[in-house]
């Protein structure tokens, strides 16, 4: 294996972005495993990709749009029945720290 491609500190940062809390053992293990994968993935650096456009979708079709006609809505009780915590017809969550961006 060549140089380290992802550090433990970067893994800590990535976990926070993804809202995951990893134990020390998980962090050590994942750092090594991610590094190994990224090292394998680096094989594509040998390819000349300069002139190629990225593929976002495997196939491109004509894109028919949806007519602006109201359809069925979900039954609120059926939906809220699945929720972990409900109050007054709404989803209840612990305090939210900070505004939305």
């Amino acid at each position, binding site marked *: 294996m060549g140089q380290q491609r992802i550090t433990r500190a970067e893994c800590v940062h990535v976990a926070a*972005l993804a809202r995951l809390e990893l134990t020390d053992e998980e962090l050590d293990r994942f750092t090594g495993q991610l590094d190994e994968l990224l090292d394998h993935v680096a094989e594509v650096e040998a390819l000349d990709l300069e002139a190629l456009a990225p593929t976002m979708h495997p196939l491109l079709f004509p894109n028919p*749009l949806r*007519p602006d006609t109201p359809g069925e809505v979900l039954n609120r009780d059926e939906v809220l029945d699945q929720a972990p915590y409900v109050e007054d017809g709404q989803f209840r969550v612990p305090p939210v720290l900070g505004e939305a961006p």
Partner: protein
Amino acid sequence: MSADLHDVPGLGTPADTEWETVVGLEVHAELATATKLFSASPNRFGGDPNTHIDPVSLGLPGSLPVINEEAVNLAIRVGLALNCQVQTSVFARKHYFYPDMPKNFQISQYDHPINVDGWLELPSGKRIGIERAHLEEDTGKTAHVGGGGRIHEAGYSLVDYNRAGVPLIEIVGGPDLRSAEEARQYVTELRAILVAVGASDGKMEEGSLRVDCNVSVRPEGTNRLGTRCEIKNVNSLRSMGRAIDYEARRQIDLLTSGQLVEQQTRHWNEDEGRTHALRSKEEDYDYRYFPEPDLLPLVISDHKVAQIQNELPPLPQDLRRNLAKAAPSVDADLIGLIVERGLYDLALAAFDQTSGNLRAIKRLRNHFAHDLAGGHGSLLAKALIDLVNMEEAGDLTATQAKKVLAVLVESGGSPQDAAQELGFEAMDTGELESLVDSLIAEHAEEWSRFCDGDGKLTGFFVGQVMRATQGRADGKVVTQLLNSRRG
């Protein structure tokens, strides 16, 4: 560090430096569709919480977005009205965790927005650049419970997803505005355009129009832009103006005292009249944009663009131009107001029928324009002219005329009929004279003070007359009677 500091416009300049405020606005407008951007539940304001939801707008596992054609059409209309290029666009996912965002990503447009490179012309004739106007979905709403509803002291929060998925157009203007007043003109004009093309109701109070302000300052005459701050939570034109003025002042104070402006997102606090930092650039979100794999690129044919362009209704700037041509004697401010209030058709017809007489329109502005923010309803130009003539002839008092006008706007018809139905017969002068005399006798003390020249007592007596006649008396005539009796 020190080399960099040379580049900061205005840092450490003397207190008497002339400063220029630079403002660029990002406006979010809810599009007036029947359904949401990516699903068929209704796009309707209010309603019981969580009743306008479907698997897509709730982000349920397995759900997939499908683009609403009308939202696309409205976005193109806005783009064309703002002189933009309409292009093939790509939806992208913008990631951040927030409970009112059901998928914890927002489907927006990133490096390929549907509209780019346009401009908006202010009534003054100045052009403001439009960098882009793109489609995206709205979030739900989070209500903070406990702690007086303040976010930091709340005990918990409740989430309603009725608004989630409502189509928005985000219009990003260039840093071309130079004052709070220009910013106000820009938003006013933009709102008029959105309403004119039928894209949005433009109601800032209901949150269907939302404005974020990018504010920076620099010494007059410099070309480089200063470090900007983004101001959020301005909920009215008035608070936007206050927030921009406050923020510019704050930045000038920092720079003149030798401190740097930090690039930040700041929150406008209406009650305290100040902004405070939400987060710095370093703390900014890593949104991890990437092309939305569930949606294909949105290709718009030239034919469709041409068709929408042809169907575009006249825009406020066109109306202003027409009106100025039809009625050259009217000043630009009044023309601006007429167009802004949706009184264009009425005004044009009134000019026509009175050979350019401005009385009718001035009446409208002076007495009624505020009530006609939503347009003139069933009111016809002829009825308006008749109404003004009746008022000037003394057949109706100002108060009565206002009530008649309300009827005409509501249900049309002639002012004569409406006045009769409301019981607004002009009062017999003799009847009025005897009423005034009896009131003078009743309020001898006030009358003597009035005769000694206490002008405030005029209002007292007119008020008494009005109360006794339930508003039927003409205030001007009453004043004349009072004066004639003082001798």
